[in-house]
């Protein structure tokens, strides 16, 4: 994840701090605790979201360089997760070429409610 040098603008965080707060709130909710037990068999660990939120608010309040680095690390983690590619199949760089081609066979088209249609 490369941080491009902005053209004179100040660096801004990728996500507003409220996103982390909402995730933390959802993480600690009762419904999510049950869901985590149902899926993973254990309690959810919400401390990471809290740390992310702290990193974000620290920078918003103090604007120091260390806070910025912390926040960059946080965002790096999230962006890595966003752009994670599955090792099972090869990643495409362009969509499949048949995606936009029109349907070959007339019966592939959506069926009309038609008295004479048989298929």
């Amino acid at each position, binding site marked *: 994840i490369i941080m491009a040098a902005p053209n004179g603008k100040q660096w801004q965080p990728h996500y507003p701090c409220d996103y982390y707060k909402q995730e933390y709130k959802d993480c600690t909710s009762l419904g999510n605790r049950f869901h985590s037990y149902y899926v993973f068999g254990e309690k959810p660990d919400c401390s990471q979201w809290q740390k992310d939120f702290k990193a974000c608010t620290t920078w918003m309040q103090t604007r120091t360089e260390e806070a910025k680095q912390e926040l960059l690390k946080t965002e790096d983690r999230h962006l890595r997760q966003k752009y994670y590619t599955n090792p099972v199949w090869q990643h495409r760089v362009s969509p499949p070429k048949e995606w936009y081609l029109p349907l070959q066979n007339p019966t592939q088209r959506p069926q009309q*409610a038609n008295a004479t249609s048989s298929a």
Partner: protein
Amino acid sequence: LTYFHTNMADSGENHAGSETHQHYNSENSSASTQDYLAIFDNPQKDNGASKNQDLGYEFFKGREKTYRESMTSPYGRFANLFDTYHPRCMMKLNVAMRTNPFVKLLLKAMEDSGCSAYKDRHFSCEPCSSQVAGGFDPESNQIVLCQNIISSQGMMNRVLTHELIHAFDHCRGKVDWYNNLQHVACSEIRAANLSGDCSFGGELRRFNLSGIKKHHQECVWQRAKDSVKLVRNCSEEEAGRAVDSVWDSCFHDLAPFHKIPRNKKDAIRAARFRYDYDIS
């Protein structure tokens, strides 16, 4: 031969769709007026793990029938005059595409990867003679929805999400649907995991809760294995092995979500996190 949907246990909306694949032996195609290459040579059965072990499946005997023929209206020609299934399916499809956050998130994700999905081209409401609720056809790049199986808006939402995950995988990766069992298993794991097929409420309604702890993973595994077995017509062991081999990578690949979604709010937040897209 009964064509009607006889299953009682599954009335909830978590009915898993299946992939319907076109097979590649064109020399076996029937001498019908359709010169469509698709062959359907395995009996269709519900790929959802909920109930398929018990019912016998003899819906489909003809080895030579094409895909579209096998999905002809079970109600006969004259019933088409009074067919309400098609417009009702289209209405549910419209509502889902306009309002359901899961569907909207997936559509946005696909758009972001370059495949915008158009309602008249990429979705098709059709009558099905089998018990599956829908499928993704990689040959024509279309999502097929079974208008006589999908009974509620919730079910439409789930089936759509499930199939859209397949379409999304098809869009962003070179998935070999026909030859590679692991690719199919991977997509099925993701679809069962992320579409709400294995939600607690759904499993409860289907009386499928053998335990609560980590049941989601068991359900996902089971559904993925059944789907792979159904669409690739392979044995239980092969399907099981395929699913096991890709489990670690694919269970943790949550794209386009950021966590395994539990409710609509999770989908809404995922849209904001990943695509800067504000649903509702």
